[in-house]
């Protein structure tokens, strides 16, 4: 089923008394296929949590419709939607044991076979030995797994995960993320994952809806979102370290065209593609710039501002003459630079993103499909892999 969960022009407006109303969700539409994991990614306050809470029925819908398996659930109370939520703070009930917590929902519905089903789910999540314990004695990762078990034991039509990994420490996060991925693949639950962590969304989701200010900025697979951000917001929000974003003006010189960053810094374009004098914003990821000797032709001159030798990679910050925005570059771990050093930059044109400065929308570049001029095969293949 292609349209298992459908959000149809969903709007949420909060009207606090005596304060201006808040347009939390401004008419978003999406459809999620059965068994798909859709990530709702955005900064806090972007409306992703409101969306999740509306799907769960914990928040009223101002306008629009929510359909699950073709049936509108917009007016139904939470328990009649067959939706389960794994809450950010786990929402485990302290006085009950883990087993009782997982069984809670089943008991409330007066279902049969509670014990067997609880044990099955516990086994699948590897928490059988935790069953007699109280939530208070568990680690965050264990609590998260119990919370997940409680959500899926009811075999919901739609599983909602609210920031599932945000309270875990780094090592538990890695582990839980892998388990979450495996579990979702195995069980095939239609899942909505709400997160502000782009890493989480990129690794877990089949498709990602990047949200900002109550709207979907881009909907696509993780590589679409990462490799071809549709607007400046997505370009800036997705990727770690964030994309370098520098304003520039298009200058035409006969047949050749270049991006003029400042009076003394310009990047020649492989093809003339834009109108002369157009104001643009150039986006380039730190791993799509190569640092070479300045003597090499066709390089952008720059001066090293800072060099951070991190273990797996080195991070280089450089300044281009006359350009205020500094560029962050990922360099190989073996490299070494000192501040003040003059370097040349080679840009991977295939991974150069150009946006309209006025609208913030992506501008199509004709050379994108062609072979990149200064190919950095190593960085373009590792770009998605490193996420």
């Amino acid at each position: 089923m292609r349209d298992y969960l459908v959000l149809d022009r969903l709007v949420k407006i909060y009207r606090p008394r005596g304060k201006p109303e808040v347009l939390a969700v401004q008419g978003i539409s999406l459809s999620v296929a059965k068994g798909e994991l859709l990530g709702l990614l955005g900064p806090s306050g972007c409306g992703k949590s409101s969306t999740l809470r509306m799907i769960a029925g914990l928040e009223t819908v101002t306008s629009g419709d929510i359909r699950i398996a073709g049936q509108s659930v917009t007016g139904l109370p939470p328990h009649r939607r067959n939706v389960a939520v794994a809450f950010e703070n786990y929402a485990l009930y302290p006085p009950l044991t883990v087993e009782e917590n997982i069984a809670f929902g089943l008991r409330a519905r007066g279902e049969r076979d509670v014990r067997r089903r609880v044990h099955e789910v516990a086994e699948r999540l590897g928490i059988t030995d935790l069953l007699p314990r109280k939530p208070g004695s568990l680690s965050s990762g264990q609590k998260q797994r119990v919370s997940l078990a409680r959500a899926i034991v009811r075999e919901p039509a739609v599983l909602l995960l609210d920031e599932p990994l945000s309270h875990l420490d780094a090592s538990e996060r890695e582990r839980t993320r892998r388990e979450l991925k495996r579990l979702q693949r195995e069980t095939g639950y239609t899942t909505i994952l709400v997160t502000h962590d782009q890493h989480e969304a990129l690794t877990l989701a089949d498709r990602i809806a990047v949200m900002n200010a109550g709207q979907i900025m881009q909907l696509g697979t993780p590589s679409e979102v990462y490799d071809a951000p549709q607007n400046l917001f997505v370009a800036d929000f997705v990727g770690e370290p964030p994309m370098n974003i520098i304003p520039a003006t298009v200058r035409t010189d006969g047949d050749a065209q270049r991006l003029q960053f400042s009076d003394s810094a310009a990047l020649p374009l492989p093809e003339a593609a834009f109108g002369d004098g157009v104001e643009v914003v150039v986006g380039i990821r730190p791993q799509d710039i190569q640092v070479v000797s300045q003597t090499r032709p066709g390089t952008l001159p720059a001066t090293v501002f800072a060099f951070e030798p991190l273990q797996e990679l080195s991070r280089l910050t450089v300044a281009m003459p006359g350009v205020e925005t500094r560029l962050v570059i990922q360099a190989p771990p073996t490299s070494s630079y000192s501040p003040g050093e003059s370097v040349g930059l080679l840009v991977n044109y295939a991974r150069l993103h150009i946006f309209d400065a006025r609208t913030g929308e992506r501008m199509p570049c004709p050379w994108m499909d062609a072979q990149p001029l200064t190919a950095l095969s190593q960085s373009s293949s590792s770009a998605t892999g490193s996420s």
Partner: protein
Amino acid sequence: MAQTEARRLQSAGVQVTTDAETRQVTWGARLLQWFLDLLTLAYFAFALFPLVWMFLLSLKPQSELYSTYFRFSPTLDGYRAVLGIGGTEEIPFLRFFFNSLVVSVGAVAVSLLVGLPAAYAFARWKFRGSESLLFTLLSFRFAPELMVIVPLYVIYQRIHLFDTRLGLVWVYQLITLPLIVWILRSYFQDLTPELEQAALLDGYSRTQAFIKIVLPLVRPGLAAAGLLAFIFAWNAFAFPFVLTGSNAQTVTVGALSFLGGAIPRYNLTAAAALISLVPPLILALFIQRFLVRGLTFGAVKG
């Protein structure tokens, strides 16, 4: 403390002091502990002295009341007189005692009945005037009782609530309701709403979620607020002093009336005060285990 800290640092690969130095630190910590213990003891004596004095006073015969020696011939006559055992009862203290019990329990019960849902609503929803309502409740506590007592006296006379237990229960709401609402509200706020939302998704109604999920979790708060409210109601003086006559008078006012005769009978007042100490004490001991659990409650939260 110092030792575990040192061990923690050591395991983290930090150069740690030698054994001798560690021992010195431990000695310092121990000295500090002794000093603190001493301070606690001093405060203990300071706080308990009035009680001890009162106790001695209650055992003194009338003739030795004004001697400041600790040597006197102890007698239980004071208690007998207060409780009206073997002799004529000058002041119906037992009735006052009973009045106090009824009025205090009644006031706390009414406050819990009203305050529990109110506190929950205040904690969970913002509604028109919720802030001002909360503040109004609090203002009952910081506005002096004497400010409102004269008009209240006139009103109570007129609507025939003067010198009735019901009237006291009502006016005691000024004391107990704000306490209960404010304490319980903070307990409710500490509970994540996700707990109830999870219950809603599981198929419970709002009321069921409140009774089955929320209420058991705020039991320590309920005990603490109830106990505090009871103590405040029990010790109330100004309201019963002005708003009761001989019928609905409470122990606080009653104990004082032993001083009202031709000869002030401090021994009887002391005995009466000590007797009136018993119910809050018993209640506190009984509720204590809930209070201790209330302190550790935070550890259980997700």
